[in-house]
């Protein structure tokens, strides 16, 4: 029996969390910090419009940055309409269709607001809409949580190249891309600043971008 190894300075969870892939330094900005704020504001307004005042809406972000976006959207809705929209997170790891292709990864948090999702209008929130596979996984995960009245999708960036019949109800910015490019969404809470960058595809693809 050996003595305990010294605890790792980096918690296992942080170690295994998905970083922004590639090198943002090599990418060019598509949205500035101010642009991001403006886009989120617009999305909040659209959301209030399309949901007739945001009643019975539950925002569920897909970790990590989708969760942050959901929280921001909820804050802006509150600022504009004085309405408290519950927001939470929905981990899709265990529902992904590419689980078999990689090492099992650490789970993200699933945090469903106290009222649950039954009968609610659930708005799934993600940073980038690409193949649509993450959204497909999120729909499956949601179905196991309960039965929403309806489900909508909000994304900060739609970069195209869908592989499934999925479209977003709220799009912050359409950014036409080639498959040789990568979209980096940076948010202050997760990355220290707000920006959307477009860069060359990396050797290690961001796994969320292409399940």
């Amino acid at each position, binding site marked *: *029996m050996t003595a305990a190894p010294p605890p790792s300075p980096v918690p*296992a969870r942080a170690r295994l969390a998905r970083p922004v892939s590639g090198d943002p330094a090599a990418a060019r900005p598509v949205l500035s910090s101010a642009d991001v704020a403006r886009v989120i504001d617009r999305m909040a307004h659209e959301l209030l419009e399309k949901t007739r005042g945001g009643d019975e809406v539950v925002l569920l972000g897909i970790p990590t940055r989708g969760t942050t976006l959901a929280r921001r959207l909820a804050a802006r809705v509150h600022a504009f309409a004085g309405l408290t929209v519950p927001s939470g997170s929905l981990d899709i790891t*265990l529902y992904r269709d590419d*689980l078999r292709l990689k*090492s*099992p990864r*650490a*789970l993200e948090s699933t945090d469903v607001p106290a009222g649950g999702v039954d009968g609610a209008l659930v708005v799934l929130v993600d940073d980038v809409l690409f193949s649509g596979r993450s959204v497909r996984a999120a729909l499956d995960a949601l179905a196991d*949580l309960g039965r929403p009245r309806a489900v909508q999708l909000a994304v900060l960036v739609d970069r195209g190249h869908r592989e499934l019949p999925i479209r977003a109800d709220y799009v912050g910015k359409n950014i036409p891309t080639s498959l040789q490019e990568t979209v980096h969404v940076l948010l202050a809470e997760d990355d220290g600043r707000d920006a959307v960058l477009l860069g060359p595809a990396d050797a290690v693809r961001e796994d969320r971008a292409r399940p």
Partner: protein
Amino acid sequence: MKRHLLSAADLSYDDAILVLDTAEELAQVSERTIKKLPTLRGRTVVNLFFEDSTRTRTSFELAAKRLSADVITFSAKGSSVSKGETLKDTALTLEAMGSDAVVVRHSWSGAPANLARWIRGSVVNAGDGTHEHPTQALLDAYTMRRRLGRLEGLRVTIVGDILHSRVARSNVLLLSTLGADVTLVAPPTLLPVGVGSWPAQVSYDLDAVLPKSDVVMMLRVQRERMGPTGEQAAAYFPSAREYSRRYGLDVRRVATLADEAIVMHPGPMVRGMEIAPEVADGVRSTIVEQVANGVSVRMAVLYLLLGGSDSAIGSPS
């Protein structure tokens, strides 16, 4: 690469924390209406129980089913494994059936290690002889962390038949990896020769240790240890009464514990022997939670071993 969970020593600090964190997320599934995840769809998990243990077997079964794995259970009683079929034959049969993981409980120490050499899938030790029971240690650590918020520096006292306890071995290894301070309390006859090399303190005096404990884990003491029974080795202690007096956890002793301290027992209990009924059912007791937590922890272990193209935790073949 497929890996195995044969010993708590197979888990690094990061591995162990990953299991506990994963279990924390998976615990939510047990609270939902639909207690099922598609994660292990198409995977086959074989529960191979050469020794009776309804609790552990059903816990693993439920864990695998909640992850949508196909589950086959062989219990030694009434199947070919009890009729002289060798472990090796059984292993080859399991291979032929294409099992992805084998959860094995066996009365011989090391049987899971043998199995791991003979099959391609992952092997999870669900208790082998007097060796180890790593998922029990994981669920114990999980329970401690949930109740007390931390493991680092936690003072854990394990009381009872350390010599024959696979739970004690796995707990000592895992808890020391996780930074807890473990003290073993037992009559000297129930401590193994060589225990001095373990990463744990040893005491013969329960009353002295209790006030300095955050967690007290009581181990079952089997009555057959009292002997003398024919060919068996001599008795380890004179009588149940004396054992209970010196090492049993009764109401008077519990009163000397710190306010926050908890009482654990891996079960099955011998009420009135190592633990008084009032203590087992008291507010400090985590005995019922331990059972529920077992499912989450085992889901986490199965997911991390089988959920991907290779394993995220464990020891290589």
